[in-house]
């Protein structure tokens, strides 16, 4: 599985190999030796047998690069996150009770937009209050419980509308 970088809304698949004491970069079917040496002000990048000055700054998964008179930002796409489904219903849509208990408060209502991590329902079980949070950004479709209701483990609490393609 190659590494994916996003540049200007296009994905590029590459692979880096270490061999004979240097790195080689595979793009498509062609491979070239590559090296990056820092020397104070500007760094020097070698691809093939040509060396050019380059300036780069890394910020998390974003790599900002200035080379050949242009500046671009490439983003490294983590494969596990990248290959997750983008559309259609998934089981993340129905939020189930992790244990039996009582509803302290149903925070959200149908039609409400929620962000990942927002509290949907507060439940109480075994003298402990737990905030049940949304696993993803989305819109609440149904709230199955109301304040004071008791429920079993794995009972549906809130259903989110299926995520639309992104």
């Amino acid at each position, binding site marked *: 599985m190659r590494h994916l*970088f996003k540049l200007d809304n296009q994905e590029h698949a*590459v692979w880096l190999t*270490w061999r004979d004491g240097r790195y080689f970069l595979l793009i498509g079917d062609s491979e070239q030796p590559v090296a990056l040496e820092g020397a104070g002000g500007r760094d020097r990048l070698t691809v093939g047998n040509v060396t050019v000055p380059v300036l*780069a700054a890394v910020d998390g998964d974003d790599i900002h690069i200035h080379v050949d008179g242009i500046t671009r930002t490439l983003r490294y796409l983590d494969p596990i996150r990248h290959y997750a489904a983008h559309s259609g219903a998934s089981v993340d849509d129905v939020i189930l009770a992790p244990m039996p208990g009582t509803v302290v408060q149903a925070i959200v209502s149908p039609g409400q937009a929620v962000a990942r991590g927002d509290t949907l329902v507060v439940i109480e079980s075994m003298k402990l209050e737990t905030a049940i949070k949304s696993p993803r950004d989305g819109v609440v479709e149904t709230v199955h419980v109301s304040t004071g209701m008791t429920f079993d483990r794995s009972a549906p609490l809130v259903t989110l509308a299926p995520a639309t393609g992104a």
Partner: protein
Amino acid sequence: MTKPFSRVLIANRGEIAVRIIRTLRRLGIDSVVVFHEADRASPAVQQADQAVEIKGSTPVAAYLDAEQIIAAAKSTGSEAIHPGYGFLSENTAFARAVADAGIVFVGPTPDAIELMGDKIRARAFVESHGFPVAPSAIEDDDPSTFNERARAVGAPLLIKPSAGGGGKGMRIVRDLSLLDEEIERARSEGQRYFGDGRLYVERYVENPRHIEVQVMGDAHGNVIHLFERECSVQRRFQKIVEETPSPALTPELRVRICETAAGIARAAGYRNAGTVEFIYGNGEFYFLEMNTRLQVEHPVTEMVTGIDLVAEQLSVAAGRPLSVSQADVAVTGHAIEYRIYAESPAQGFTPTTGRVLRLGLPEGDGIRLDLGIAEGQRVTSAFDPMLAKLVVHGADRAEAIARADRALADFALLGCETNAEFLRRLNADEAFGRGDVHTGFLDANPQIAAEPELEPATLARLLATASLLTRPVRDAADAVPELHAAMGAWRN
């Protein structure tokens, strides 16, 4: 010569604050700068001898707070306040309040600011002194004769709503037989958009060029001009590239425009720095307005004349006569300024934000960079998106353009997208190279804003750099055992 002041407060931010500090330092004058929290990491705050925090409901509001600024000047013992450009620089009340506080305002008199600040009054003033203004007809003067007087202005003409602004509701009329119809339509539009159907009409110059003249006056009645600047490369009335000398002017025209500007300033008894703006086209030029402050693009004038305009401003503000006479002012070579904005030309020039992670600055002969941001600073939408000015000087226009190409290629700001590549494409444009520009140039050439496809070699370089700097990619390469890496993608 003793220094004009011992301490000056700069009521501004960004690149102009840095530029003013540079001259203050050269003259041995203490610099004080006011700043909003959002600018704490900015270079001006880092470089000033003293920095005083000011507060506001928004960052911009802080820099508009006259009380706080004057209080800061007093508490630091600053003898003068330099207002820069924008913010309070053309605010008559502020100029008066500064004077009332016993502090010197580095700029023109409040009366001059007031006169030129009212566009209608200024225009009337200039016209009454016999200087050229665009022929016009104002409906308010006599509504019943408006259409007639409008026709007399001559084609092409521009119908403008009195209550309008920002280019809204303006109609160009090239065929006078359609004039009455267009006036009706403009009136109903004015009513619809601004709740006011009154109009005025002005002569329209086709493909106009924006020419302005730098003037400087002292308290002793001396007024000189420091030649012109052309600022025609604009977008939505925002200047992007300015240069001097203007490629459009013949020597005779140059003299006429510059002397007209000096004449206007003289007639107004103008002191300190100012700029008279004209619309030029087809051999005719008309007064547009006068700006009673130091302008953003003043560096191009400094580079061809060798005169430090801020130093001159300080000297004049301290009551000294101009340090040069008109005869002493000469132009050498050609200078062009490119404004570097935090914006994305390919996405319709929308403003961009980010953090300045790394800077790579061009250097060399004839290169001047007025930078308003430092590494580590955040670029937000709180302020105007201009980050820096690249000013290039050459023996002639071609040399300046060549130097600018190199400098724009070398300029690197990582972490926030800028228009630097767009400026380079603009600089390389054939028509620009010939000097065939006008205020509609960029709108007429949308292809300059479009980003060309990356060369395969450049794409490979980007991917190589990203790969070598991304840990998971490098770690995956380092993890493969030597034998298998050497064998490559072999299959039996």
